[in-house]
Structure formats: C-alpha cells, structure tokens
C-alpha cells in the first residue's frame, strides 16, 4: 500500500480541523474541530508505525495516549464551555473577548 | 564540640542573624509579637553561642587565631572564606552580640516611628551579621564585604526611622529633613573612605603574591614585602578608610549628624560597635601588614587624635542638643583609642582595646538613655530639660552614673582606656618622636578635664535643678522594665570591667604583644 494518499488525507483532515477552529462560532464546534486535528495526527502515527515496523510500537502507544489525553481534553474543554455558557448564556466564542485591550 | 572549633561555630555566629532576618521577612507583618519574640530569641541564641565560643577559646594561646577555618570562596581571585578569632577580636565579637541582644530587648517596646518591627528588627539582625563578620574575617575581601554590609541597614535605620525635624545645613540653601541629610552623609562619607580602602586591599593583593589572606599578608608585610611609595600610598588609603569609620578628626562630621538623627537603637549600635570597626581595622590590618608605614604615620595619627580629643570636648561644651553632645563625646573618646593605637606599644594598643569595649558599653548606654529621654520629652534641647532626677529618677540616676563612667572615673570601665592610652603615649615605640607623643599625652590629659567639664555641665543642665514648668503637668514615664533590662547589664558590665580589667586584658594582652613583636621585632 502506498503511503502518499494516506498522508494527504491526514493533511486534509488537519487542514479541515484548522479551518473549523478558525471559522466555527460555537465553542463546542471548535472542540469538535480539534478532535479532527488529533485524529489526523493519530493516522500519521499509525501509518508510520506500520511503515517502519517499529519493534517497540511507539506509534501505536502514542496513539493510545493521544486518544486518552483527547478524552481528558474534551472532558475539561466541555466543562469550561459549560461554565462559560452558564455565566454568559452563550457558547459563542466571539463574545468571549475579556482579554481585549 | 568538634563543630565549634572548626569554624562552624563562628560561621553560625556570623550568619545566624542573617538567616533570622530572612525568616523575619517571611513572617506576616501583622504578627508583631511573633516577630519580636523571634528576633529576640535569635539574637539571644547568637549571643549564647558567642559565649560558648568564649569558653571554647583557649586563652593560654590568645595570640593565635583560633576556632577558624579556611574554605575556598572565589577561586578566580584567590579569595577565601577565612575566619578565626584571637584575643583582639574576641572581646569585640562578644560585645557585638551582647549589644545586639540589648538593642532588641529595648526595641520590643520602644520602636521608633514609623513603627514597623519587621523591617527594623530584620535590619538590626542584618547589621549584626555585618558586625560579627567584620570581627571574624581574616580575608580582605571577606572583611570588606562585611564592612560594607554594615552600611546598608544603618542607612535605612537612619533614613526611615530617623529624626524627622527639618533643619538648615550650612552651605545648602534649602532646608532638609535631618534624617535624610544624616543618612546620606553617613553613607557617602563611609563609602568614600571604604572605596579607597578597597583600592588599598587590591594594591596589597597584587604586590603580595595574589593573596587576600590577612595572616599571609602579615607574614609578607613583616618580612618587608611592601616598601616605598607603594606602601605609603596603601597605608594612606587604608588610613582614610578606617579613619572615617573611627572617626578621626577632621573626618568626623558625619558622626554627630548620624547620631543625632538615628533612632535610639541605631545610635547605640553605631556608637557601640560600628565605630569600633575602624579602630579594629587599624589593629587587625593596617598596623601588622604595614608596620613600617604605621611607624611613619604614627606621629600624625597621634596629633590628629590629640586634636580630636580636645576638639571633640570643646565642641561638646557648645552643644545644646543632648544627643549631639554625646555624639561629639565619641569623637573625643575614640581619640583616646587612636592615641593608644598610635603609640604602637603593648600598653597603648591594649588601652585601645579596652577603650573600644568601654566606649561601646558606656556610650551605648548614654545613647540608650538620651534616646529614651528624647522620646519621653519630645525634645533634646538641654535648655528646656532640667530636673530630670525629679521627673525620671531611674533614668536620671543611670544618666548620672553613665556620665561618670564616660568621664573616665577610675573603678569604671572608661578609666582604663583613657589612663592606659596616656600611659602608652608617654613612652611610644622606640624611634617615634617622643616630643609629639608627650605633647599629645598632655593634650589628652587636658582633654580628660574638658570631658569632665562638659559631662558635668550636661548633668547640671539635664539632671539637676528644678524641672521647668512645662513638664509639671505632663505625664512622663520613667524607665520601664524593657528599658531597665537593656540598661542594667551595661551598668554591670561597666563596673565589672572597671574593677577587673583582666576581663579584657586577659584576652587582648598576649595577642597584642604577639602582634607587635611580629610587626616591630621584639
């Protein structure tokens, strides 16, 4: 199996994630896009792991860790969004501009 | 006990106050009682430790440096952490830790405005580190560091807790707050001197095999390594550095201002210990390292001392400010110390040593008393005071006692310094100009009369007579238990040293003789 198409797809997933982060207004949607980015990274890890036939299987192990961390991240992220929503009655990240000059 | 003798004990005596000061800064400001208790306990521990060292000290070989250690410190310039004490530094070290305890006891209830025990007590402890360090340092750089550490706390003490009255200063158009003028003058004056001193140290370093170690430099100096113009210049700058601190006439003018402006405890420490750093420097560094130069300069030092004695006493007669009077009296008393040093004889330098301790105890007490009185009366103007014996009998009685001690009453500590200094000056080291020294001795003897004159006049104006009407309806508080517990030990010490001078001579005599025989041979 040729690796290039898979890599391109992973890059596409990454770019789409970036696009989502930049464009989406809803904070939940932004988190969703971050999952896309993580996923693209996972694909790359698995691909390279298989390709290099690493005896330590570090690619797979990293992927497992990433998935775990991603789960944690989502938990916390959503909780934060929830708090924000509760305080501001909106999940629109454009309205969270407390750091304005 | 091993720990005490290998330098650890000395190091703890030096640095324990610093650590305590640091810990004090960590205690919240609101917990004043804790801060005070902590400061007191840590100063007491330091004192007890120094007393333990006193017992560890081998008096039978007081001429040797003991309880010390040498650890490499700054390798690149061969500066070592070299410490140790001998009979010359031991009394001063113990005096320093002792006076600090008393200063802190006094501060517990009598903090100057603005009251801030945290800063004040921490500064006292930092000051103690500087003072103790100077007395144990045997490395020029270490000595210099400690010598300079002392400046900072004192600067802040005067500048923050000092006298806030506004006064005119000759030569300046604008009126200045006394404390600001005094603190800056003190700082700049001493820094001016010590900057030159550092130059001298560096000169010795480069000429003397690149070492800063005082014992090694003494070996070099006595074997004739420093000669000619170089040595003259080095002695001159060392003289400048130490003479400012002593202070010798005419470099004394920072002293009255600093003393007058400083808070009570500040002036006590200033008089009791800080002035001794200068004269100690002469005995520890300038004379043993550069004996020939010391001999060449001795007549000049003697003359300046004699001038200082007479001049200080006369200036005292003109003062109307109580604290300023006592400050000027320091000029006179330190003149005796320097006269003793200038004679370069065992008698003279022993006299200087006991004179230093005695001056520390007595003038310290005088400043305690005058500060407390200034606090009670809110004035230091002797024209307004009077009848103190009636208003504050305890303080007055102590003031009378201390004034007597200060004027050199035999049987009290002050006598030995004065009398022995004159004794030393009569027969200075062989080869010194006898006429100069005998003239200085007569001047010093006349100075004792003037000293008696101004102190008794001060007593008459402050202590005796009927109190003026302005005090009658005022509620004046006599010395409380904190003040008394800070003062009584000094009174006891004054009597003890006066009756039994061996307390000091026992330590200093051998060391002084050894130092001089090394420097001048035989």
């Amino acid at each position: 199996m040729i690796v290039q198409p898979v890599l391109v797809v992973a890059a596409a997933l990454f770019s789409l994630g970036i696009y989502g982060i930049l464009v989406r207004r809803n904070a939940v949607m932004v988190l969703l896009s971050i999952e896309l980015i993580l996923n693209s990274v996972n694909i790359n890890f698995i691909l390279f792991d298989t390709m290099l036939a690493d005896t330590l299987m570090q690619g797979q192990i990293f992927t497992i860790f990433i998935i775990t961390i991603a789960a944690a991240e989502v938990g916390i992220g959503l909780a934060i969004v929830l708090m924000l929503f509760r305080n501001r009655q909106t999940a629109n990240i454009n309205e969270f501009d407390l750091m304005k000059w | 006990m091993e720990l005490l003798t290998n330098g650890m004990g000395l190091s703890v005596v030096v640095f324990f106050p610093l650590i305590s000061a640091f810990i004090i800064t960590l205690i919240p400001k609101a917990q004043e009682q804790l801060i005070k208790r902590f400061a007191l306990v840590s100063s007491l521990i330091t004192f007890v430790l120094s007393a333990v060292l006193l017992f560890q000290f081998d008096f039978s070989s007081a001429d040797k440096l003991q309880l010390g250690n040498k650890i490499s410190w700054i390798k690149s310039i061969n500066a070592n952490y070299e410490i140790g004490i001998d009979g010359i530094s031991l009394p001063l070290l113990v005096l320093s830790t002792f006076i600090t305890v008393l200063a802190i006891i006094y501060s517990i209830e009598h903090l100057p405005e603005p009251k801030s025990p945290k800063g004040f007590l921490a500064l006292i402890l930092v000051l103690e580190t500087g003072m103790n360090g100077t007395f144990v340092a045997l490395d020029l750089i270490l000595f210099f560091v400690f010598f300079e550490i002392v400046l900072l706390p004192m600067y802040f003490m005067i500048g923050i807790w000092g006298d806030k009255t506004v006064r005119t200063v000759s030569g300046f158009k604008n009126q200045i707050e006394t404390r600001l003028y005094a603190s800056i003058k003190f700082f700049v004056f001493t820094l001016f001197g010590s900057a030159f001193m550092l130059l001298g140290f560096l000169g010795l370093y480069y000429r003397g095999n690149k070492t800063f170690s005082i014992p090694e430099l003494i070996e070099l100096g006595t074997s004739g390594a420093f000669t000619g113009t170089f040595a003259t210049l080095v002695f001159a700058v060392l003289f400048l550095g130490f003479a400012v601190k002593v202070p010798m006439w005419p470099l004394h003018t920072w002293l009255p201002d600093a003393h007058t402006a400083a808070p009570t405890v500040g002036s006590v420490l200033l008089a009791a210990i800080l002035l001794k750093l200068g004269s100690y420097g002469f005995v520890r560094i300038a004379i043993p390292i550069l004996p020939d130069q010391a001999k060449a300069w001795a007549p000049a030092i003697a003359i300046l001392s004699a001038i200082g004695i007479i001049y200080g006493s006369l200036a005292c007669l003109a003062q109307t400010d109580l604290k300023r009077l006592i400050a000027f009296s320091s000029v006179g008393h330190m003149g005796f110390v320097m006269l003793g040093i200038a004679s370069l004889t065992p008698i003279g330098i022993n006299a200087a040593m006991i004179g230093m301790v005695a001056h520390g105890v007595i003038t310290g007490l005088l400043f305690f008393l005058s500060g407390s009185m200034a606090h009670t009366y809110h004035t230091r103007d002797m024209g307004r005071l009077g009848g103190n014996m009636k208003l504050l009998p305890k303080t007055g009685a102590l003031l009378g006692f201390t004034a007597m001690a200060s004027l050199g009453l035999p049987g009290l500590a002050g006598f030995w310094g004065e009398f022995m200094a004159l004794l030393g000056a009569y027969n200075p080291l062989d080869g010194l100009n006898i006429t100069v020294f005998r003239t200085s001795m007569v001047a010093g003897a006349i100075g004792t009369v003037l000293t008696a004159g101004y102190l008794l006049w001060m007593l008459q104006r402050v202590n005796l007579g009927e109190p003026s009407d302005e005090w009658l309806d005022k509620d004046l508080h006599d010395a409380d238990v904190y003040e008394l517990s800070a003062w009584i030990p000094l009174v006891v010490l004054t009597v003890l040293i006066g009756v039994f001078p061996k307390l000091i001579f026992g330590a200093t005599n051998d060391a002084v003789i050894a130092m001089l025989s090394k420097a001048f041979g035989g």
Partner: protein
Amino acid sequence: MVNFKPTVFAEGELVYTDGGILAEYAWLLVVLPFVAALVITFTGKYLPLKGAEVALTTIGIIFLYSAALMYLHITSGVVNEFFINVGSIGVFDIEFGWVVDGLSIMMYFVVGTVALLVFIYATNYMEGEIRYTFFFTSLTLFAGSMLVLVSSPTLIQILIGWELVGVCSYLLIGHYWEKKDNSSAAMKAFITNKIADVGLMIGIIILALNTGTLRISKILYQSTHDYEKLSTVAFVAAILLFVGAMGKSAQFPLHVWLPDAMAGPTPVSALMHAATMVTAGVYLLARMFPFYKAMAPDALDVVMLFGVITLLAAGLIAVVQDDLKKVLAYSTVSQLGYMVAAIGSGAYTAALFHLWTHAFFKALLFLGAGSVIHSVHSNSMLEMGGLRKVMPKTFATFIIGTIALAGLPPFAGFFSKDEILASFNHEGETTFFFIAVLGAFITAFYMTRAVSLTFLGEYRGHGHPHESHNLMTTPLLTLSVFAIASGWVNIPGVYTGFTDWVTTRKNKIVEYHPESFDLFALSSGLLAGLLGIALGYYLYQLQGSAETGDNKIKIQPIWSVLENKYYLDHFYFKFVIDPVKINISKAVDKFNTNVIDRFVNGFGQVASLMGSVVYNNFDQNGIDKLLNMSSTGTDNFGGKVKLLQTGKTQQYLMLFLGGVVTISLLILFIT
C-alpha cells in the same frame, strides 16, 4: 581557732610583724562600704531608719576593725601589703590590694573614728531632709573611697580612690541640687580636683614607666637606692604628684573649691575637712615621702613654699568671712597649709601628727557649727550671737575645739603645731617659721572672732535657737575628748608613740625627730596663739561688741581683696572657664559646622552641581531625549497595534497561523 598572733619579720634595720589574720582580712575595710552602699541603695527605703542603720553598722565595724588594727599596731608594729592582679598590660601588672602599715592604720583609725561620729551625728542632723537614704549611700561611699585611697599599695589604686573621693564629694556637695548654686559648687569641686588629677595622672605615668612598676613600695625602694632611670624625671614627677595633692588638699591656688564645698550638708563638711578628701593630698605626700626626700629634695622646697603661702593666705581670708562654715573652711585650708609645709620641710611625722589632731578638732568644730546652724537655720554669724546660753553643750565643745585649733596646751593642736614650728626652726627656714607663727596668731584671732560672733554677745537672729538632740551632742562630746587628748600621744621627751606608729613602714623614713621641746618654737607659737585670742577678745568683747568688732579691722583695700578671695575666682572665671566654656567651645562648634561641615557639604554641592550639569545638558537633552522619543514612538505604535488585541481567540489564532504559514512557505520556496 583562728590564729591572731602575727609573725615577726626582720628586714634590714626594721623589725615588724605581718599583722596576721587581721591584716589579711583588712580588705574588708575597703569592700564593706561599697557593699553597704549597694545594700542601702536597694533596700534603704524599706528599712525602719531609711538605710542609716546599715551605714552605721558598716562604719561601726570599720571603726572596730581599725581600732583592733591600731591596737595590734601599737603593741607589735604591723607592716604588710597584699596584691591582687587584675590584669596585665604589656609588661605592666595592674594590681589592686591593701597595705597595712603605720601610716595606713593611722588613717584607717582616723577615718573610722571621725566617720562613725559624723554618721551618728548625721542621723539626727539630716532627719527629714530630702534624699535621706541617698545621703547615707553617698556618705558611706565617701568613707569607702577614702579607705580605697589610704589602703592602696599601688599608684593606680591611689588614683582610683582619689577620683572616687572626688565623685563622692560631688554627690555630697551637690546634695541639694535643686538650687543651681549648689550643683555649681559640686561641679567646681569636681573640676578643680580633676585639673589637679591631671598632674597626679601624668606624675603616676612618669613614675610607673620609669620604674616599670606601679607598686609604691617598689618605687620607694628604687628611689632610696639611687635608681638612675628615676633620678632624671624625679623632680618633674614629684611636682606633678604635688599638683594632684594641691587639688585634694586645697593648696593655693587650687583651694577655691573647698569653701564653696560648704554648700553640702554640714556632716559632709565635717567628714570632708577632717578625715577624708582633704587629707588625701597630705596622705599622698606622706606616702611618697621617701621618694621626695631621696630623689627630689628640690621639689620639697616647692611643696613647702606652697604650703606656707596657703597657710597665710587662707588664714587671712578666714578673718573676713561672715559665714561660720566658711571661716572653718578657710581655717581648714590654712591648717592643710601647715601640714603640706611640714612635709615640705621634711617633717613627716609632724605633718601626720597635725593631720591626726586636726582631724578630731576640726570635725568637732564643724559638727559644732552644724549644731548651731541646725538650730539657727542660718549660716551667717551676723544672725547668731549669745548662743552660749541656749546651747551650752555646743558652746563648751566648740570652745574646746577652738582652743585646740588655736594651739594652747594641753589641747591637741598645741602639740602638733609646735612640732611643725619646731621642725621649721630646726631646718633653719626662718622666714617660713615666722610666717607660720603669724599664721598661728591669725588662726587664734579668727577663731576668737568666730566664737564671739556666734556664742557671745546678744542674739541677733529671728528664730528660737535651742540645744541640739543628744545624737548630735554625743559625738561632739566624744570628739572633744579626742580634741583634748589626741595630742598626748606625741609629746617630745615624754611619749613619742605616734612617731613610731607612722614611721613603721616598709620603706625607711628618714626625718628629724625632736627629742625634746624646742622652747623657742614652743614659746613663739604659744605667744602667737595667746595674742590672737587676746586681740580677738579685746576687739570683739572688751572694746566693742560682736557687732562692731569688724569695723575696727576693716582696712581698705586689704579687706576688699580678702573678701573677694584675692580675686582668684574672678580670674579663673574670666580668663579660664568662661573663655573655654563659651568662646572657645562656640568657636570650635562654629568651625565644625562652618568650616569642616561646609567643606563636606561643599563636596556634596559640587557633586550635585556637576550632576545637574551632566543631567540637564547631557542626560536630559541628549540620552533622555532619545529615550523619550523611543518611548513616545513605542506608545504611538502600541496604540495602533493594540487594536489587534481584540480578545477574540480565533483572530489571534488566525494571525498566528497566517504567520506560521507565510514563514513556512517562504522558507520552503525562497531558500
């Protein structure tokens, strides 16, 4: 069992004993008063007699101890000295200690006796006075300091006792310090003594450094064995020591403090003038007598000269005084002149003998005067008169004292004065002999005058005088016994025990002892005394009354000169004290602030001026402008850039990623 029996020693021609345990514990004499003073200070106020009992007990013990020593000495001659090393300085040993020999035992006894009686007297005299307890503290210290002085085996301890006595006198003279006059008198006493002490101090320094020791006995040994190093400085040292003695023993012209010292309570005056303080100078000269005799005979002439001047000058002033105590004070100065002159003439025993008798009768006179003053409440004799009727005991004892002072036999003063005159005669000092005789005449005259003005005639005062309490009259009576009998211990040809007492010393005393009465001296002295009394009685009783007597002898301008005490005080104040206190000290202070300080401040000013030049021209307009410009630029730029700070995370991210992408693309395709 304690062994009191002393061991007998023989050293050269002298045979003496070491005094045994009594001598060994003689330090108690010195230490006890100081302990007592401490006890009184801290517990006195709570005791029933306000501390007086402690003082009395102490001084009682001292009296008994000294009496015991005296007895031992009379029976078996004690000479011993003890040393305690209190520190070594260079090669010098600083030693304290106590000496037990004839001279010191005599002094112990005098101090002990007079002090005991004065203390008893003072308990009543000072009753109800301010600072009663403190008075007894100082009085005890005073006695103690004198004992320190007379017990001293080393010069340094002499100096210590010397100045301690001075301080105690300061405390006692200034007892009523609420009045400025009194504190000034105290100061005057202290400072005058301090001036003299400079002499003593330098003298001691010279002696110590040239002999290498501070022990008196060693110095005296060296001086009698022609120690060469000493001979060159002996004269100077001797004169300097004498200057010290002049201060304490109130010799002309340093006597000015003594009459002013009358500002203190009368018991103080009695103690000071009889046993302590003023005798110190004589004691010092006596102690150092072998040195003077052997090494500095020239100095002895100077001593004699000053002594004679003093005895005459002070006696003359005494004539014109109206203050009873001042008459006695000048009389003391005059009598001290006798003692000093006697030492100067080489009559060691005579001087000490006069010291001995004088101590008793002068204490008697002072205490009598105190009794009078206590009842009349005035010092001025012009407000007294006729007191013989109301105060018979005081009168009787005062008369005894007067006769003793005037030198009529068989009273004490007769024998001692006669011995002094005899030694003048023996030494061939004819002029001085006659001056001394004249002095005796004057003494008798002014004492008669004083008695007349005080006790005879009619009462001129306002109060109601009364006889004093028994506590005051008992010491008077006791002292009158001494005033009569103390002279009998040294009657030439009959019993000369006193000579043996005081010459029993470690160092041999070489002097002239009259073996029998010198009839010429005796008759001229007696005649002078009688004439003086007769003239006084004639002027103040027969010719006129006590009131008018003075007018007969008011011969101007001598009277004014005497009344102004030879203008000596004026001279001191105008030319010494005021210039130093006011002009010179002010000048020094001005110099300090206007020259030195200005110089220092000038440094500061120059520095600040240079600073301002550098600051204004270089710093502010140069570097700072640049800096300021950069800061304004930054400010403007930031004002614009801050607009980017929208707080919107997406925008930030966008910018960030845009940057990253741009840079990456650039790296990728341009490099």
